[in-house]
């Protein structure tokens, strides 16, 4: 193992996903192409985990996701979508389908924004954009749909 290769790999990953500067000698234009491709791939993976959020944003999904994710390393598709949905909720731009998906997820699992989400052992509820979901014994029900 070499410290040099390790450091250079870390600098490259930082440049691609964490807003770091292009490492010396790399073609910045080619890195930009790779950065965009990584974001497209990641957007597709997050959409698989958050299909209603992505569907609710429709044609704006790719741009919305890329705008949020650029410079922010992935925490995994489940958490990426969760963090984005919460941020859109704060901004007041979460679409109704995404609000219902977020409410259902928050009712089912506890997620502190840092570690992996954990299933709630006790009954729980979640709300977003007017949507209210409750979970009892692991079963989630949408009590009230989101405002439309």
């Amino acid at each position, binding site marked *: *193992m*070499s410290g040099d*290769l*390790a450091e250079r790999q870390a600098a*490259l*990953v930082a440049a691609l*996903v*964490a807003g770091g500067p292009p490492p010396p*000698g790399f073609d910045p234009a080619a890195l930009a192409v*790779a950065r965009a491709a990584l974001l497209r791939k990641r957007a597709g993976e997050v959409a698989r985990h958050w299909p209603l959020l992505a569907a609710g944003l429709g044609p704006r999904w790719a741009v919305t996701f890329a705008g949020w994710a650029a410079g922010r390393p992935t925490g995994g598709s489940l958490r990426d979508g969760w963090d984005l949905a919460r941020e859109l909720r704060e901004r007041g731009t979460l679409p109704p389908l995404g609000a219902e998906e977020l409410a259902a997820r928050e009712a089912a699992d506890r997620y502190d924004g840092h570690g992996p989400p954990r299933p709630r052992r006790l009954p729980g509820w979640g709300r977003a954009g007017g949507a209210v979901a409750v979970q009892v014994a692991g079963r989630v029900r949408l009590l009230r749909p989101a405002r439309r």
Partner: protein
Amino acid sequence: MTGPWGVGIGWRPEIAGFVADLPGLRFVEVIAEGVAATGPLPAGLAALRERGVTVVPHGVRLSLGGAEPVDPARVAHLGAVAELVGAPLVSEHIAFVRAGGVEAGHLLPLPRSREAVDAVCANVARAQAELPVPIALEPIAALFDWPDDELDEAAFLTEILERTGAFLLLDVANVYANARNSGGDPAALLDRLPLERVAYAHVAGGAEHGGHYHDTHTDPVPPAVLDLLRELCARHRPPALLLERDGHYPPAPTLRAELDALAAASGFPAVT
């Protein structure tokens, strides 16, 4: 359990019904990280196993090309999935996917340097020591190169294969993408690779964005990739071919036509 043979397809939950209905299918691949090591297998995959279909676990997160030692828990998971599906071999990439504790989210290229060859070979050896079956290594499609390559692609890959004794998983679409994006001749690379070490080959679709060909796995297989597949088969036909599709799934007739095109280009029997 036999090695992969004929035309296969990457098993994904979204197309499990389509795959289950392929009468001649003898080989699928499954993303290893998507299978629980303790089981049970997804129902569709278990049914294929009962039919005698060969299932090869394909890892995407080992990061064999990382300068850090490969994570033993990830190797153990890959090995457990191999035993769960009774696989004859597993496959992974010559790439790294994380560094300095940060996930890149996809396969990144290595410098074609002696130092990187050493790092890959050390990690492959660590994995081989724990895996219950042989491993095949897949070169990736890269959108950029490191600035200080000491070896060309063929020499880089050949040295890794010779030193590790691993099989080659040759991705025809990756060879095409790299040649097209760097202005090289894809067939010339085929002439310099140890084709007799190919355990199976990947074929996938892609698309052009902004002057670069992207190996997306979400677009149709272009005619040029099928042409390159014919070139490969003319030199040394691999024992098996696998169609990779990872999203934007087309209607069943379109996907069947892609499988038929692989069979026609290689001379393998149609599986549809």
